[in-house]
């Protein structure tokens, strides 16, 4: 040190203490701030040490990635048998759909993605029209493509549908069909007409009060009884009706949340402009309310997407059911874990990305009504 005394205000700035900056500072603040935190940190590291290396070794290092049979998987010290998934992959995706017709569901899927892309482009002008097209016209195109039987497409019975394709179809149909019913129910629940209101309340609370499994059981066992003799429903249609009834009640509550969030002034302003009920709802209230509840709708979609796995109980072959069936294949016995991990990963990717999207949307939409 060359200088030991300074005039007032002349002292040069000192470096911050080494223990508060850089890696050490971060560690001290975030991992070892006191004895309790240090203990927790050590515990956390111990957990990671205990589980991470064996997991990585099982999943990647020692895994068998592809093989026509199970021989390498049975070798001593072999890890995960991804060959099992590899061999069954197309079945997991399409169920028992005829191989040479895979292009049809593929086209339907790609078409949907192509149609959806403009919806995410900010400057695209015909979003409403395109959305309406997707909701109203696209389902028919998809039906003709996947089901066939029209326009010279070969018929593929619904009992051959399966795998991820069926999971996606069930959840997409469930959400698209339950949205309009849900809107009507939500409006009905907020109606001033006592009978309309109570009918809607009873409907909503009934379906929300019972588990989806009982609904599916009901639709598969009781629905045929409700219709005149000879009316034949296929299993998939019955499951869909059950899911739509169930889901529309949840959708109604989501939409109701949006309707309640619209300030009363909007209702009054619409009425004072002389708009009729349907006009004020359609032009003023619903466009604002639905915008608010898009994240909520995405969340219901996530819940429905996970819930579609229950259809395996009534004998449909969705992704989980197909994997469950493959697990019991005598040629590939004992690879349950791989199957479940694979199914879990697919569900996780879908649900996690949708939930992130929903959170991002919530933040983006959280503008007009923030006070």
């Amino acid at each position, binding site marked *: 040190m060359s200088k030991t005394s300074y005039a007032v205000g002349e002292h040069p700035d000192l470096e911050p203490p080494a223990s508060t900056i850089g890696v050490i500072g971060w560690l001290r603040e975030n991992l070892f701030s006191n004895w309790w935190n240090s203990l927790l940190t050590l515990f*956390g590291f111990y957990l*990671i040490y205990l589980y991470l290396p064996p997991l990585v070794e099982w999943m990647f290092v020692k895994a068998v990635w592809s093989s026509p049979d199970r021989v390498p998987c049975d070798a001593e010290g072999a890890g995960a048998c991804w060959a099992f998934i590899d061999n069954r992959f197309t079945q997991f995706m399409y169920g028992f759909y005829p191989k040479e017709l895979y292009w049809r569901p593929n086209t339907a899927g790609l078409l949907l993605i192509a149609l959806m892309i403009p919806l995410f482009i900010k400057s695209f002008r015909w979003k409403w029209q395109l959305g309406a097209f997707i909701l109203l016209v696209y389902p028919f195109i998809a039906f003709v493509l996947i089901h066939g039987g029209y326009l010279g497409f070969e018929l593929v019975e619904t009992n051959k549908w399966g795998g991820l394709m069926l999971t996606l179809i069930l959840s997409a149909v469930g959400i698209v069909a339950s949205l309009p019913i849900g809107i009507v129910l939500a409006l009905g629940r907020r109606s001033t007409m006592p*009978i309309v209101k109570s009918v809607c309340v009873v409907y909503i609370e009934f379906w929300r009060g019972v588990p989806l499994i009982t609904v599916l059981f009901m639709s598969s066992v009781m629905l045929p009884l409700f219709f005149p003799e000879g009316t034949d429903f296929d299993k998939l249609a019955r499951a869909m009706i059950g899911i739509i009834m169930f889901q529309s009640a949840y959708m109604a509550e989501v939409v109701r949340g949006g309707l309640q969030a619209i300030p009363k002034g909007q209702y009054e302003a619409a009425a004072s402009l002389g708009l009729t009920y349907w006009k004020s709802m359609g032009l003023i209230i619903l466009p604002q309310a639905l915008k608010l509840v898009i994240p909520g709708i995405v969340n219901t979609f996530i819940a429905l997407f996970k819930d579609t796995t229950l259809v395996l109980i009534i004998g449909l072959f969705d992704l989980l059911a197909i994997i469950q069936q493959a697990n019991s294949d005598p040629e590939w016995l004992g690879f349950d874990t791989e199957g479940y991990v694979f199914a879990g990963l697919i569900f996780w990717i879908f649900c996690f990305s949708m939930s992130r999207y929903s959170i991002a949307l919530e933040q983006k939409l959280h503008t007009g009504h923030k006070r």
Partner: protein
Amino acid sequence: MSEPDSGLKPSKPAFWNDPKVRALFFQVLLIVALGYFLMTIVDNTLENMRSRGITTGFAFLDEPAGFGILQSLIPYTEANTYGRTFVVGLLNTLLVSGLGIVLATIVGFIMGVARLSHNWLIAKLAALYIETFRNVPLLLQIFFWYFAVLGALPSVRQSLDLGLGIRFNNRGLYLPEPIPENGFSIVLWMVLIGFVVSRFVKRWARKRQDATGQPFPVFLTTLGLTFGLPLIAFLILGSPLHWEFPELKGFNFKGGMTIIPELLALLLALTIYTGTFIAETVRAGINSVSHGQTEAALALGLTRVQTLRLVIIPQAMRVIIPPLTSQYLNLTKNSSLATAVGYPDLVAVFMGTTLNQTGQAVEITAMTMAVYLTISLTISFFMNWYNKHVALIER
């Protein structure tokens, strides 16, 4: 009318534009349409059932069931009636939901707090847990635990010994069972007495604190009374309790308590899955209490623990409880997935086996749905009551 008639009348809308008339019309229309719809359904159902030779009514409940049930909380044999299977299933559903709610609450609160921890590693681990298990279907998780984990456990003869007489194998978890002896009921009464007395102590302590400002260690007293008193009674009476240990006899363990793998898998999955949602609820609740509250409490000289107990938790609970209720409801309804692994809950026993045997689809579906509706409405009623109770503390 005393005013001269000017000949002008307030314009009155045509009757078809009168809101009251319209409301009446639409409601009558709705009732007629609904009535017609229901009547058609009932008509068709009766017709269909007649042609299939199914009798209506609840007489089948008195017929002998003739099938065994894996786990029953009340005495049950194959000779019992279908009515009894209903009760057995219902109790099993209540058992798994009750246990699940307690466990999921514990896991959820720990993980919710852990995710907010200042410890970076702990917060990330909690987030990893939440984001992983929340986004995977519950049914898949049940299958995973049942087939992949519990199914891979060793057989009875190679049981894992977890210490304290606990054995674990692919037939289930075998625990020592406490067998109360004479006088054990006194210990249980002491718990109740201790609890009641501590309530009075709490009231007295509050009064004294209001009057003199002197605090009293209520929490420790409560703890001492509710646990200490029975413990003393227990020791004075000479430990009127012994443990029955499971022992390997022949091909299986005899004695002790058994938790069947179906129940274990279901509980694990329900706890872990619902725990993630409760954790998120707890996190949102704690985050909703503004930081100013903490600062104000600390500025008043409250300790960290007091701040948490007196300021943060009461306010956070108000936000947490309504969504927590719906998580409890979800768990109860999700417990019906038991049927997928064969745990004998209401749906599996009654809507599954009984329905298959009797074919009484309408009655059985109605009874099962009525049970779930009752449970749902009761829980939400109770929680609303509690919510109000908590909300009253507000200014």
